[in-house]
């Protein structure tokens, strides 16, 4: 098997992410897919630190740091400004965390994609406000510990379904990705690059310090999230055509994914059963959507 991962590195060594962080990996792969004719916008998040302090930069394309709630709006302005200055084919990539995407930035993001602004918005989702020290976000899954959802009162609400929200805007392209499947991530970013209009990529991004997991297991966790169907890899075109891009070889129990993370250590067997039931139901719904979109369903996938 050969992998189509470009060799060009636009992300430099010396960035200041924690060991095992999924976020720099996601951006590294995205930049491999996009190439040099790219402008990166960093919404306030861990990446505000990862990119390096003034006067350094960890990426070899122009990079703009911006305010928490402005991922969609600044990108709209940058794209318009670049076009006005003659850079018609430069890709604008917004990189934001789950806080900047699911919560404080959702208004500007929703508005930007409703206008179908021509940019790629990549959310690296580590499922809590990690840069401020692990506080719950609306991307935090049910039952998880964070510093604002302590073990005695873990999060009681399900994770917000951001992909569904983005797909409901009928934008040309919405997709999920993880760093455990770089060829899938790169293919999706390349596909997004060639589409005019708004593209949304939701990347699950393990955070060893917030998930209380081993740094060396971030890729494994990303893979288990996919193989357990907790975080399926799929794409949605124009809000209606669902395609599952990676089928789990065999469906791994979600408990394997949960047990590698201290943030779920307090969960009782019935809690895990509840999570498993939810995962199973959501997966069935997704498969049904893919089927309804005309995708052939492998025998192991249904």
């Amino acid at each position, binding site marked *: 098997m050969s992998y189509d991962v470009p060799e060009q590195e636009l992300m430099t060594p010396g960035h200041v992410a924690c060991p095992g962080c999924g976020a720099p990996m996601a951006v590294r792969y995205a930049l491999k897919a996009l190439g040099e004719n790219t402008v990166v916008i960093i919404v306030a998040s861990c990446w505000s630190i990862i990119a*390096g302090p003034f006067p350094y930069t960890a990426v070899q394309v122009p*990079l703009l740091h911006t305010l928490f709630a402005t991922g969609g709006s600044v990108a709209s302005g940058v794209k318009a400004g670049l076009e006005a200055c003659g850079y018609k084919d430069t890709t604008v990539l917004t990189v934001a965390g789950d806080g900047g995407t699911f919560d404080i930035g959702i208004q500007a993001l929703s508005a930007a994609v409703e206008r179908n602004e021509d940019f790629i918005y990549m959310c690296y989702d580590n499922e809590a406000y990690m840069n401020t020290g692990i506080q719950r976000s609306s991307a935090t899954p049910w039952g998880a510990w964070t510093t604002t959802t302590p073990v005695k009162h873990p999060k009681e609400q399900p994770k917000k379904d951001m992909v569904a929200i983005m797909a409901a805007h009928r934008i040309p392209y919405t997709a999920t990705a993880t760093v455990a499947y770089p060829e899938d991530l790169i293919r999706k970013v390349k596909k997004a690059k060639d589409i005019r209009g708004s593209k949304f990529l939701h990347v699950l991004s393990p955070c060893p310090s917030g998930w209380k997991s081993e740094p060396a297991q971030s890729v494994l966790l990303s893979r288990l999230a996919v193989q357990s169907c907790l975080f399926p890899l799929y794409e949605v075109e124009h809000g209606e055509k669902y395609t599952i891009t990676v089928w789990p070889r065999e469906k791994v129990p979600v408990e394997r994914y949960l047990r590698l993370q201290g943030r779920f250590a307090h969960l009782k067997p019935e809690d895990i059963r509840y999570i498993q039931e939810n995962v199973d139901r959501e997966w069935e719904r997704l498969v049904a959507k893919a089927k309804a979109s005309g995708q052939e369903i492998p025998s192991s996938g249904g």
Partner: protein
Amino acid sequence: MEKVIMGNHAVSYGVQLARVQVIAAYPITPQTQVVEMLSEFCADGLLDAKFIKVESEHSVMAAVVGASIAGARAFTATSSHGLALMHEVLHWASGGRLPIVMANVNRALGPGWNVWTEQTDSLAQRDTGWIQFYCETNQEVLDMVIQAYKIAETVLLPVMLVLDAFVLSHTEEPVDIPDQATVDRFLPPYQPKFCLQPGNPCSFYGLVAPEHWMELRYKMQRAMEQAVEVTQQVGAAFGQVFGRPYDVVEKYRMEDAEIVLVTSGSIVGTSREVVDELRAQGQRVGLLKMRMFRPFPFAAVREALAGVKKVAVIDRNISYGHGGIFASELKAALYGMPNPPTVFPFIIGLGGRDVTPQSIHKIVQYTQQYDKPAEEIIWMEVKR
């Protein structure tokens, strides 16, 4: 070409003449006609600009910041709550040293709802690093848009030009609209010094440690200080080309004045009338129009008021717990002057209450009657 137009449309024509490349805006009364006309200009091909119709003023300012850092000449207009919602991003425009121009139509902030004129909205943004100009007439509004870009692009700070709700925004006056070729010669295309440029991998607005931070802020303040002289140069050059010179302040009939009215915005026009009447009666009353509020034109104000006995500052705004904002800033500017004038701080016309020539007469009478103000704030025409 002379046209009879409202203040809001004077803004729009100014933006068209300045060949703005990116506009982002969100409607708010009483500013809406500015952007309505601009969207028509864009749709009709009369202005080659991208108009981003965002969903909030926070996004407005973020979008123009994005456009400006990408190297484009960018514009927006807002008012009151819209400006307040932008507050966070105003700092990024100025801290980013971006020559954005924004028109703000002065309107009171709620609650309760009030759409009429008051300067508290723009003055509350005085510490955001934006240059601020207050306009008296629709002609000045149009002229100021063109000058604002020249000033902003010279000192690399954003400019807010301010006009009164309804009194200017919706009132039609004859305005001379200069021809495009002359404006093009006066205001050449924007050449950004630094911008997001594909192929040039620079990082903008990243984490700045204390070892660098103060120098960046020092440079901002230096640019602000420089803006006074640049405004004077641009205003004089504008006068040479278009026949209407401008300065940071305007002295009106101040020769031998014992009492000087200090005010801004459309109240200046009303005060001119009153000064003319009083001068006709032989009274030694003059007027100092504050055009520039940020940077505060210390030298011009001190020079203008040297030797004056009494100064009546007319504020259509309030800093709660302190007083009228022009008055308090003026007092600070006069501190340390030999024999400074006595400052009479008046507050009047909040929330759009009419300020009439009679109101100004009362202010002059009060100032004549007392040696010094009887109160910290002299409230005019308020039901107590």
